[in-house]
C-alpha cells in the first residue's frame, strides 16, 4: 500500500481555493485506494455523472485498477466484517458534499470535508490492511464456497471492527517463539544438567557416569497431529495463504517436542521444588527477563549501555571478599576498564573523520623513538620541536620515562615506584634458589609488569608457552572432587609453592597441548 500521503497544506501557498481543490483531489485519490480495498466502486452512483472533470485530471485513472477485491474476501473469511464507518452510501454523501462545497465556493467547508474523508479512508485502509491481504483464488474457483453465505450463528447485526489476522498471526508467532524457548530449555536440561546426553541431538547413549535421560512419550505427538489437522482445516476454510501453514506448524511442533520430553525436565524441576529451589529459579528468571528488557531498551537509547557499564564497574562489590582482597588489581582493572569503555556509547556515532586520533595512535611509537633519540642527543628533553602537538600528546608519558633513564635517575617500575633493578633481580634469584622456575617467581607491581615479564619470558623461550602459571591464574579454589594430577605438578606443588596455599599455579589451560606433546 502506498500513495496514501496527506497533502501538507502548510507548505502550499495560502490561496484557499487552491488548497481546497488540491486537498479534494487528494481525498478522492485516497478514497479510491480505500474503495479498491473495500471492493466497492470508487465513484459511487450519485456522483458518477459529475465526475468527468475528476476523471479528466487523472484521478479517475485509479478506477481502471479497481477490482472486486472484498467480494473474494467475504467468501473466504468465516466471520467477515466490512469496515463499518465508511460504506458506499456514506462515501457517496461525503463526496457529493465535497463537490457542492467546491462548486459553491465554501472552501473552509470543503477543506473540513476532505480532511474527514481522508482520515476515514486511511482508517479503513488500515482496517483492511490488517486482514489477510491475499484472498485465495483456488478455493473460490473450485465449486461453491463453504462460507459464501452468512453463518446463521453470527452474533450481532453490526459487527465491531475486528482485526482477525493481526491477532491470529501475533498469537501464533508468539506461541512459536515461546515454544522454541521452551524447546531449547528442555534441550539444555536434557543435555547439560542431570542427564547424560552431552549435547547430542539424536543419540540417546548417555555419557560416562551419567544417567540416561528418560524415554520420550508418544502421546504429545499424537495430540499434535490432531491439533495440526484441525488447524490446517481451519486455515483451508479461511483460505489462508500457504505461509500461514508454516506459521502454525512451528508452535505445534515445538510444544509437542517439549511435552514429549516432559519427564526429562519435570523430574529435576520437582526435585528442585522439594528442596525449595523453585523460588530461586523464579527469581533468577525474573531478573534475567528484566535484564533482557533493558537490553531491548538499549536499541532505542544507546546511552543506557553507559549506565550498564557503570553498574558493571560496581560488580566487584558482590565478589567474594577473599577474591577482592587477594586480587586487588583485578577489580581495579575491571572497574577502570568498564568506566573507560562506558564512554564510547556517549560519543556520537562515527560518521566523520577525526584523523587527529588516528594520527596519535599510529605515530606515537614512532614518535617516541624519535623523541628519545633527540633526548639522548641533546640530553635536555626538548626534542619535541619537530613533532606536532598531537604526537607530543601521544608520547609524553613515554618520553618522560625515557628522559629519566637518560638522566640516570633511579628506574621506576610501571607503577612509578622507585625500585632498583638489582633489588628485583635479587628477589627473583632468591626465589630461583628455592627451587622454582624463574617464570613462576612472584612479581611485585602492576599487572602490566606481570604481563610484560611474561611476554619477555615467552619470547626467550622462542614463543613456547610457559611451563607454569600466568599471572592471571586464579590463586586458589575449593575443589570438591579429587583431580588427576601429573607427578611433576604434584612434586612441584609439594616442594615449593610460590604463593602460600596456591593450588592453581601449575594449572595450564587444558586445550593448550600443542607442540609440547610432539
Amino acid at each position, binding site marked *: 500500500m502506498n500513495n496514501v500521503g496527506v497533502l501538507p497544506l502548510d507548505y502550499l501557498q495560502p490561496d484557499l481555493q487552491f488548497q481546497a481543490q488540491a486537498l479534494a483531489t487528494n481525498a478522492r485519490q485516497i478514497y479510491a485506494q480505500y474503495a479498491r480495498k473495500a471492493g466497492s466502486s470508487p465513484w459511487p452512483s450519485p456522483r458518477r455523472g459529475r465526475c468527468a472533470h475528476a476523471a479528466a485530471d487523472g484521478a479517475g485513472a485509479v478506477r481502471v485498477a479497481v477490482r472486486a477485491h472484498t467480494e473474494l474476501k467475504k467468501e473466504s473469511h468465516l466471520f467477515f466484517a466490512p469496515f463499518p464507518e465508511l460504506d458506499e452510501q456514506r462515501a457517496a454523501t461525503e463526496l457529493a458534499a465535497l463537490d457542492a462545497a467546491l462548486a459553491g465556493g465554501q472552501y473552509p467547508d470543503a477543506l473540513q470535508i476532505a480532511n474527514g474523508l481522508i482520515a476515514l479512508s486511511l482508517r479503513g485502509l*488500515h482496517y483492511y490492511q490488517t486482514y489477510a491481504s491475499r484472498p485465495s483464488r483456488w478455493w473460490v474457483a473450485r465449486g461453491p464456497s463453504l462460507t459464501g453465505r452468512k453463518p446463521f450463528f453470527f452474533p450481532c447485526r453490526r459487527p465491531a471492527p475486528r482485526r482477525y489476522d493481526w491477532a491470529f498471526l501475533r498469537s501464533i*508467532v508468539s506461541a512459536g*517463539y515461546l515454544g522454541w524457548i521452551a524447546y531449547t530449555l528442555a*534441550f*539444555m536440561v536434557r*543435555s547439560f544438567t542431570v542427564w*547424560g546426553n552431552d*549435547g547430542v541431538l539424536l543419540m540417546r547413549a548417555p*555419557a*560416562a*557416569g*551419567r544417567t540416561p535421560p528418560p524415554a520420550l512419550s508418544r502421546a504429545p505427538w499424537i495430540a499434535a497431529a490432531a491439533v495440526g489437522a484441525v488447524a490446517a482445516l481451519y486455515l483451508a476454510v479461511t483460505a489462508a495463504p500457504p505461509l500461514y501453514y508454516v506459521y502454525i506448524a512451528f508452535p505445534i511442533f515445538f510444544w509437542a517436542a517439549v511435552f514429549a520430553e516432559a519427564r526429562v525436565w519435570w523430574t529435576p524441576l520437582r526435585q528442585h521444588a522439594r528442596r525449595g529451589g523453585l523460588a530461586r529459579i523464579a527469581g*533468577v528468571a525474573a531478573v534475567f*527477563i528484566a535484564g533482557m*528488557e533493558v*537490553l*531491548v531498551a*538499549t*536499541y532505542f537509547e*544507546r546511552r543506557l*549501555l553507559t549506565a550498564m557499564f557503570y553498574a558493571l564497574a560496581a*560488580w566487584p562489590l558482590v565478589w567474594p571478599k577473599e*577474591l577482592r582482597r587477594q*586480587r586487588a588489581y*583485578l577489580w581495579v582493572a*575491571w572497574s577502570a*576498564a568498564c568506566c*573507560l*569503555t562506558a564512554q*564510547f*556509547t556517549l560519543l556520537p*556515532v*562515527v*560518521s566523520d*573523520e*577525526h584523523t587527529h*586520533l*588516528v594520527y596519535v595512535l*599510529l605515530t606515537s611509537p614512532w614518535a617516541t623513538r624519535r623523541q628519545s633519540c633527540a633526548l639522548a642527543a641533546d640530553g635536555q628533553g626538548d626534542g619535541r620541536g619537530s613533532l606536532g602537538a598531537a604526537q607530543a600528546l601521544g608520547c609524553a608519558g613515554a618520553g618522560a620515562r625515557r628522559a629519566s633513564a637518560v638522566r640516570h635517575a633511579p628506574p621506576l617500575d610501571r607503577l612509578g615506584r622507585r625500585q632498583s633493578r638489582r633489588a628485583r633481580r635479587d628477589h627473583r634469584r632468591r626465589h630461583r634458589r628455592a627451587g622454582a622456575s624463574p617464570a613462576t617467581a612472584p612479581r611485585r607491581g602492576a599487572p602490566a609488569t606481570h604481563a610484560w615479564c611474561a611476554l619477555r619470558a*615467552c619470547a626467550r623461550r622462542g614463543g*613456547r*608457552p610457559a611451563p607454569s602459571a*600466568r599471572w592471571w591464574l*586464579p*590463586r*586458589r579454589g*575449593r575443589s570438591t572432587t579429587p*583431580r588427576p*594430577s*601429573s607427578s611433576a605438578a*604434584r612434586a612441584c606443588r609439594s616442594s615449593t609453592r610460590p604463593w602460600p596455599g596456591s593450588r*592453581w599455579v*601449575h*594449572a*595450564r*589451560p*587444558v586445550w*593448550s597441548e*600443542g*607442540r609440547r606433546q610432539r
Partner: protein
Amino acid sequence: MLAGSGVSLLVPFVGPAARAHSAADRLAIVALGFGAPMVLLSISYEVLFYVCFAAVLFLWLVVEWHLAAYSAWAPLADGATQAPSHAQRRQLQLSDVRIGYFFLFFINVAYFGTGNVASVASFSVASVYRLITVFSPFLMGALLIVKITLPFFFLAAIFGILTRLVGLPPSCLFVLVVSAVDIMTLNFFFLVRDTVRVGRIRCRVAAAGH
C-alpha cells in the same frame, strides 16, 4: 595497500602462529590480528573502542575464571594434560545465566559501540577510501562489514574459551544464549508496526545519508 591489509588480516591466522598453544597466546593473536585491519579501516575512535572493548572482554574472562574457582566446582585440574572427559565436565548451574547475559550485553556493546550495525548505510564509506579509491560498492560494502564485525570476532573467541574455562561442554552456553535471545526477539516482534509516517522515513533517510 589492499593486498597489504588482506595479508595483515590473514597472517595471524595461518602458518605457525595459528598453532599457538595456550589460550592466552591465541587470544592475543586474535586480538592483535584483528587489530591490524581495524587500524587500517578506522577513521575516528574505533581503534580506541576496540582496545577498550578487548580489555574489558579479557578482564571478563579472567574474572569469570576466578569466580569459577570460588564456586563449588573447581574449574581446572592441577597439571591436567588432557581435555576433561564427559564425567569431569560440570553441569550447567543457575549462576551460568550470568555468563550468558554478559555475552548478550557485550554483543550489544559491540553493536552500538561505534555505530549502528543494523544500518550499514550509517557507516561512513570514508574509512574504505584509504584502501579503495575507485568506487566499487560491493568491495567497499564487504570491507565495511568486515570492519564492523571485527569486535564480534574477538567476543566470540573470548566466549568460546570462557565456556571451556569454566568447565562446561562447548556448545552449552551458546544454547543458553540462543534460548535467551528469543525474549528480545519477542519484544521486537511486538514492536513491529505496519504504518509509518512518510516524514519519519524521510528523516531517517536523511540521518542515514548525513
